[in-house]
Every structure is written in structure tokens, then in C-alpha cells.
């Protein structure tokens, strides 16, 4: 296996992140208005960036960080675009 175990810490960490993803998903499905769902998407985007970095740690490949960098640079574009659409200025 290309990745090694970092002890119990990593299990706790992944569990916390997965709970976070689950809660955001509940808000995404249940959110009463569109801005609630946009906020949930924003949080999911940031958590995705972190998950990509942590996967690079698990697989021990530095080049995987590039994918996380793409999200870190560009992910806010979608949220800003949707916000501009909501206020009618797109």
C-alpha cells in the first residue's frame, strides 16, 4: 500500500470531516432558500480542498497537491457567480 497509518488520530480526523460533510449535505438538501444551499456548497468546496490535501498525505504524492490548488484558486468563482445571478447583475 502506498500510504501508511498515522495512528488513531487520522481515523478521528476523517470521522470528523465526514460528519462535517454529512451535516453540510443535510443543509444542502433541506435548506429553505437558495442562499442556504449556496452557503452549504461553499463549505463543501472548502472541505473538498482539505480532503484533496489529506488524500495527497495518505498517498504520499506531492503532485496531488496541484488538484487542491486548482480548487483553492478557482472555487470561489462559482459562488460569486451564483450570488451575482441572485442579485440580478450577471
Amino acid at each position, binding site marked *: 500500500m502506498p500510504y501508511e497509518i498515522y495512528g488513531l488520530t487520522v481515523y478521528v480526523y*476523517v470521522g470528523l470531516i465526514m460528519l462535517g460533510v454529512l451535516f453540510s449535505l443535510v443543509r*444542502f438538501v433541506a435548506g429553505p432558500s437558495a442562499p442556504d*444551499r449556496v452557503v452549504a456548497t461553499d463549505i463543501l468546496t472548502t472541505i473538498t480542498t482539505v480532503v484533496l490535501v489529506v*488524500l495527497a498525505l495518505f498517498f504520499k504524492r506531492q503532485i496531488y497537491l496541484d*488538484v487542491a490548488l486548482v480548487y483553492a484558486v478557482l472555487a470561489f468563482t462559482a459562488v460569486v457567480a451564483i450570488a451575482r445571478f441572485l442579485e440580478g447583475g450577471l
Partner: protein
Amino acid sequence: MNNLILFMGFGLSLVLVVATFVVWLSKDLLVAILGSAVVSLVASIFFLILQAPDVAITEAAIGAGLTTGILLYAMKKAGRYEDD
């Protein structure tokens, strides 16, 4: 440890399926666009788990803004709510 990644995969595939259902059943097309953005996020993570970083970086670049933008411009022309 394989089962850590497997656990992550189960959680994320739940997100994938639920977001797809939101896209499918929502009458508000803006919510459908948001759902497709979430699907693209999770798909990118899955491509990285399956050791395909080239595909993951392409999915990330397309899903992070361009698809949303094109769909939003199209929705601005076509109207926001889907009528039965």
C-alpha cells in the same frame, strides 16, 4: 490502510447520490446547478482516490467555475423555474 479510504468512499458516494437526486427532483434550476457543482466536487475526489490525477485536475478545473458559469448564462436566458 485500505478501510480508511473505503470509509471515506462510502461517505462521499452518499453525497454523490443525494446531490444527484437533488439535481433530478428540484424544480428550481438554480438548485440543480448547485447540485451539479457538488457532484463535480465529489467526482474529483473519487478520481484522485482511483489514482487518476490527470482526470481529477481536469474535472476540478471544469467543475470549479466554467460549467456553473455556462449553465448560469444559459439559465438567465431560459428562465429559472421549471414548469410542469
